[in-house]
C-alpha cells in the first residue's frame, strides 16, 4: 500500500517536500480505511438485508445518540490533526531561511525570464546550486501565472503588480520540471522551464561565465536578446508561421494591418510593436503579445532592430 502512495508522488528532491508527503500519506491511509469500511458496510447490508418479500417489516430506528456523536466527533478530531499538520508544513513553505540564494523570475506569456545577482540572464532555465536554500522571487508582466515545481512540492501564483516567492533546497544534482499552473492563454501548456541543479563549484563557474548579461556587437547582442526575452517563442527566424509574424524578411516589408491600412516595417514601427504591440496588429494575427514597456531599454531595442535587419 505504501508503494502505491509513493507512486502517486514524484520523487522528493527538497526538504520542503517532507511534511507534505507525510501528510499526503496519512490522509490517504485514513481515507482508504474509511472507504473500505463504507464499501464493506454497503455491500454487506445490501446482501444481508436484501428484500425477501414485499411484506417485509423493518424496525423503527430513528436515531442513536452515542453512535451519532461518535461519528461526528472522531472525524472532527482527525480533521483537527490534519489541519494542524498541514498548517505547520505550510508555515515551513512560507519561512525562507536567511541564507537563501535569491533569483528573480518573471513570468510572461509564455516564458519564464530568469535574472541572477551578477546580471546573468536565462530564459526557461533556472540554474541553482545544490544543498543551498534558494528563494525564487516571482513577478508577472502580463496576466496571472503560477510557478510550480512538483519535485519540490512548491507552487505560488505569479501576480501582476505584486511580488510573490517560493523557496526550496535542491538536494541532488540534476534537473526538475517547472510548470505554469495558472491558465494564461494559447501556449499555457508550453510555458515550461527547468530547474538545473549544479554542484556549488559548477554553479559559481556557470555564474561567472554568464555574468553581465549579453555581449558582443549590436547585432550579436540583438540575437541574444530575442532569445532571452522570449521573442522566438512566437516569432520564427526561418519564415514559418507561429503565433506572431516571422522575423525573416520582416524588415522593410509592407504589412497589411487588421484595420485594412498598410505599414512599412521600419525602426519606428518595430519600436512601437515592442513597447505597445496592440497598437498595430498585422492582419490574420491576434492581439496577444505582452507589452515590453518598462522591461527593455532603448539600447536593447536598437540592438534587436539591428539584428532583425540581418534576417533577410
Amino acid at each position, binding site marked *: 500500500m505504501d508503494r502505491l502512495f509513493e507512486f502517486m508522488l514524484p520523487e522528493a528532491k527538497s526538504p520542503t517536500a517532507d511534511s507534505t508527503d507525510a501528510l499526503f500519506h496519512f490522509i490517504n491511509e485514513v481515507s482508504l480505511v474509511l472507504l473500505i469500511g463504507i464499501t464493506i458496510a454497503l455491500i454487506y447490508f445490501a446482501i444481508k438485508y436484501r428484500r425477501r418479500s414485499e411484506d417485509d417489516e423493518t424496525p423503527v430506528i430513528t436515531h442513536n445518540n452515542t453512535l451519532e456523536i461518535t461519528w461526528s466527533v472522531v472525524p472532527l478530531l482527525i480533521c483537527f490533526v490534519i489541519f494542524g499538520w498541514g498548517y505547520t508544513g505550510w508555515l515551513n513553505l512560507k519561512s525562507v531561511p536567511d541564507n537563501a540564494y535569491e533569483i528573480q523570475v518573471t513570468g510572461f506569456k509564455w516564458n519564464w525570464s530568469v535574472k541572477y545577482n551578477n546580471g546573468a540572464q536565462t530564459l526557461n532555465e533556472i540554474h541553482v546550486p545544490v544543498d543551498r536554500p534558494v528563494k525564487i522571487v516571482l513577478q508577472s508582466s502580463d496576466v496571472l501565472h503560477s510557478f510550480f515545481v512538483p519535485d519540490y512540492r512548491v507552487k505560488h501564483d505569479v501576480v501582476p503588480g505584486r511580488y510573490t516567492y517560493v523557496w526550496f533546497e535542491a538536494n541532488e544534482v540534476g534537473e526538475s520540471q517547472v510548470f505554469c499552473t495558472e491558465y494564461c492563454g*494559447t501556449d499555457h501548456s508550453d510555458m515550461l522551464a527547468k530547474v538545473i541543479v549544479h554542484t556549488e563549484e559548477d554553479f559559481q563557474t556557470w555564474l561567472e561565465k554568464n555574468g553581465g548579461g549579453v555581449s558582443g556587437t549590436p547585432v550579436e547582442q540583438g540575437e541574444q536578446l530575442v532569445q532571452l526575452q522570449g521573442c522566438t517563442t512566437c516569432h520564427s527566424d526561418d519564415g514559418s508561421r507561429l503565433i506572431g509574424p516571422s522575423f525573416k524578411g520582416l524588415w522593410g516589408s509592407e504589412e497589411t494591418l487588421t484595420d485594412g491600412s498598410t505599414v512599412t516595417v521600419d525602426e519606428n514601427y518595430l519600436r512601437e510593436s515592442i513597447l505597445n504591440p496592440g497598437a498595430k496588429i498585422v492582419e490574420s494575427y491576434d492581439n496577444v503579445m505582452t507589452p515590453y514597456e518598462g522591461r527593455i531599454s532603448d539600447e536593447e531595442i536598437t540592438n534587436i532592430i539591428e539584428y532583425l535587419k540581418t534576417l533577410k
Partner: protein
Amino acid sequence: MATAEVSNTKTLKVQRFKPADNPTNTYLTDEKGVWAWMTTVDHKKIGIMYLVAVAIFFAVGGALALLLRTELMTPAKTFIEADTYNQLFTLHGAIMVFFVLVPSIPAALGNFIMPMQLGAKDVAFPKLNLASFYIYVAGAIFTFIALAQHGLDTGWTFYTPYSTESSSSVIWVTMGVFILGFSSILTGTNFITTIHKMRAPGITWGKLPLNVWALYATSIIQVLATPVLAITVLLLTMERWLGFGIFDPALGGDPVLFQHFFWFYSHPAVYIMIVPGFGIISEVISTFSKKTVFGYWAIALSSLAIAFIGFLVWGHHMFTSGQSAVATTVFSFLTFLVGIPTGIKIFNWIATLYKGSIKMDTPMIYVFIFLFLFSIGGFTGIMLGALSVDIHLHDTYYVVAHFHYVMMGGTLIALLAGLHFWWPKMTGKLYNEKLAKIASVFIFVGFNVTFLPQFVMGAQGMPRRYYNYVDQFTAFHQTSTIGSYLLGVGFLIILYYLMHSLFKGAKSPANPWGSRGLEWQATSPPDFHNFDHTPVVIHGPYDYHQPMEEFQLGLAVDTNGHDSETAKEVVDKEREQWKNYSLG
C-alpha cells in the same frame, strides 16, 4: 399520541383517497399543444421543460468533454488547435456548471416533485416560475451568441486580468451568466415561500421530506449567494467595456479581489449543486430499504449547517493566490468544519440500510454508486483542504478529479437516481430495468476509469487546462480517455431506454416502489392539480411501519382542485389544530 391523531382525523372527516392506477385525466392530457406548454404555469410542465433543456445542455457539455479527452490521447496536437482546445474546456466547464448542475436538480426534478411532496397544487408563484424558465433561456441565448462570435477562452472562472484582455466574447457570456443568475434567485425565492406557506395540513417541519429540507437549504444559498456573482460579472463587464480599473493591475485594480468575489459565489454554488442531490439520496434510500431514515434531524439540519458554513470557506480556492496568511489559515480551518456535516450524512444513510428490506432497483444502484464516489470526492476534499498538501496539488489534475467525483459522482449520479426514481411518476411509464442496470455498470466503470488516473497524474504534477503535456503522463491520459468513451456509451444507453419507455414503455402503477412519500399518493402521471383532494398527513414521510392507507388521507374538495372558500376554511382550521403537533 397515536390515539389523539386518530380521533382528530375522524372529527375532521378525513377520508382515504387511493390513487387510481389508470388515471384518465392527467397533467399530460390537460392543456396539450406547443403553445399550451410554452405558456403553462403548471410546475410539473415547467419542471419537464427544465429537464429537457438541462438534458440538451448536458449532451452539448458531454460532447465537448469527449472532444477534449480525444485531443488528450497524445501529448502533442491530436486533431485540434490549442486555441480551440482552450475554448472547448472553457465551454465544457461553463455549460456544465451554469446550465446543467445549478438548475438540474432544483429547477427540473425539484420543480416537479417538491410541490407534490408538500401536497400543494403548485409553487407559491406559478407565473414567476415560468418567468424563471424564460430567464434561463435568455441567459442561454446570450451564451450561444458568444459562441457564434468569438467563443470564450478564459476558463469558466473568468480570472482577471486574462479575462479583461482576452479577445474572445467575454461580455456576452458574463451577461448570459448575469441573466441566468436571476432565474436561480427567483426559483430559490419561489421555493422558500412554497415550503413555508403551502404545506398540506399535517406537514409540520418535522414531517417535511428530506428532499424538501435539502431544497430549502439550497434555495437559501441561491438567494444569498447569486447576487454576488451578478455583481462580480457586472464589474468585470464594466472593466472590459468602460475601462473601470477594478481587477486589472494595468488599470490600478487587484486581480486577487476578483478571485475573492468569484469564489464568494462559486463555492456556495458547489453546495447549490450538491445539496439537492443529498435530498434525492435520502428519499431513494428510505424507499428501497422500506425503512425510516436514520437520524432525520441530523440529515435535515446538516443541510442547513452546510449552507451556512459553505459561505465561509471560499478562500480555500486561493491558497496559492497571494491572499493573506491569516486568511489562508482561517479558510483552511473552516474547510474542515464543512466536511463534518457531509460525513454525518453519509454515515446516516448507511445506518438507514441496517436491518432494512433492501431492493437493488436502478435508483438504489445509483445511490450506492453515489455513496462510493461521493465518499472519494469527500476524502480528496479533505486532502485539498490541508494547507501544505494543497500547495502541491492546487491546479493539477488531482483537483480536476476531485471536483468531478463531487459534481459528477455526487450531483449527477444523484440526479440519475432521482430521474429513475421519479420517471414513472413524471411520465406514467416504466423503463427497461435490465438495460438500466447495464447502463449503470457502464457509468460506474467508465467514471472510475476516467477519473481515478487523474488523481495519480495530478499528484505526480500534471497541471490542469493543458493542451500539450509531458510524455510521462501519456498512459494516464489515454486510460482516462477510454473511460470517458465508456461513460458516453452509458449515457447513450440511458437515452435509448428512456426514449423507448416514453413512447413504448409499459404503464406504471401509481406507486411502483411502494413508497410512503406523498408524491406517490397521486396518480402516475399526476392529475393536473396533483391531487383532486387536499391531502392530510398524519405520519412522517418515512414511517414504513405504518399502513399505506394512512398515507392516502385527504379532505374532499368540490371544485376540482381550486380552493373554494369553504375548503379554505376547513384547511385553515385544520392547520391551527395541527400546529400543536409540531415536531411530532
